[in-house]
């Protein structure tokens, strides 16, 4: 296997996972905070929906995304009118990674928010801080380590994403991540190439998860 493929696929995967992490961060933090701090109608359903990608087969999640975003899907047909194409592009890779990484980010960030004593938030409010200021200056920094652990977990999950990605983004040269490339090479008998890519995937994954564990343990 060509060095260039290793470098290209690894860089592409890292970049896609980084973008996916940025994409999942705002909804992930909002969901984590809502689930940790608010009681509302439909909370249980929301909590289940968020965790669903953890338990259903990733390929099934990919199929749902494909049906929703495909040309004949409810969202896909709308996007087609605006000239935005998602399916079988790098955007589909990001989306699949974000959807699959989100549950892990939410779980860890939620635990972080739950560990923040609500008394600090209440006292900050008595000092004149409105809800946003309380969130940004008290809740977020105090939940910071849990959040960071969640970001790393979500990022790690995104790096290893395969099932949903292959459904919605395929194995095209422009959408090939490490896991898809490993599968492709193994399938066509390029074992040496597959093993090189495997080594890269294991190294990156190991570093991300061990860092996440260290942060989680010291929260």
């Amino acid at each position, binding site marked *: 296997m060509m060095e260039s493929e290793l470098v290209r696929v690894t860089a592409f995967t890292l970049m896609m996972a980084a973008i996916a992490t940025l994409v999942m961060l705002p909804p992930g933090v909002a969901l984590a905070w809502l689930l940790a701090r608010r009681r509302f109608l439909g909370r249980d359903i929301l909590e289940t929906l968020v965790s669903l990608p953890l338990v259903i087969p990733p390929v099934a999640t990919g199929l749902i995304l494909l049906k929703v975003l495909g040309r004949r899907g409810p969202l896909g047909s709308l996007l087609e009118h605006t000239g935005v194409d998602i399916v079988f592009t790098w955007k589909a890779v990001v989306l699949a990674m974000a959807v699959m990484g989100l549950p892990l980010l939410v779980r860890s960030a939620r635990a972080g928010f739950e560990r923040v004593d609500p*008394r*600090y938030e*209440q*006292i900050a*409010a*008595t000092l004149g801080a409105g*809800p946003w200021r309380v969130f940004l200056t*008290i809740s977020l920094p105090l939940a910071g380590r849990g959040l960071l652990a969640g970001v790393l977990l979500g990022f790690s999950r995104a790096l290893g994403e395969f099932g949903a990605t292959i459904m919605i983004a395929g194995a095209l040269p422009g959408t090939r991540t490490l896991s898809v490339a490993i599968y492709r090479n193994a399938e066509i008998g390029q074992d040496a190439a597959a093993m090189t890519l495997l080594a890269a995937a294991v190294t990156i994954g190991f570093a991300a998860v061990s860092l996440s564990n260290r942060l989680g343990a010291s929260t």
Partner: protein
Amino acid sequence: MELHQRIEARTVALYGPSGAGKTTTLDAIAGLRRPASGEIRIGTHVLFASDVGVDLPVHTRRVGYVPQDVALFPHLNVRRNIMYGTGRRDETSSTTVLELLEIGGLLSRRINGLSGGERQRVALARALLSDPELLLLDEPMAALDLGLRDRILPYLERVRDEIGTRMIYVSHIKGEVRRIADWVVVLDGGRVVRSGPPNNVLPGT
């Protein structure tokens, strides 16, 4: 619980055993707990009125609160803790409060390096510097040993006399109440048992 009091005094003590409803009352005034019905007012400033649907958000009530555990923000140093609510105060009054409570030398310290007495003074300064119309102190000396209480009480007296902030002071210690308050509300089982000047409602030593 039920509470009906209209008090003119500047320093009011809520006195009574554990479970009497003292902290619940403070939480309701600060807006951290919603009463089922009634009205809460500081002078003409209505904080809560169930019959007209007023329930001011906590951050607009201008009620400073020093809880029992003081709840200093652990990720901020002393300076950033006490300046957290200073948007409403000018620099001169900040200096006055720091001098009054003798915490000028602690500003760069971390919270977890402070002694019990220092924590109390920092929490008091933080609440005062948010320029509250009313200061709520929930057993501010419960966690301190006797010697330390005697050292902190004069600071509270100075806040009362020199800054003149209106205070509600929760305590179950008669001696403290006598020194600090000019009006006492005795609570038990969620109701007012007696109310009046300390010498009238807290007879004996």
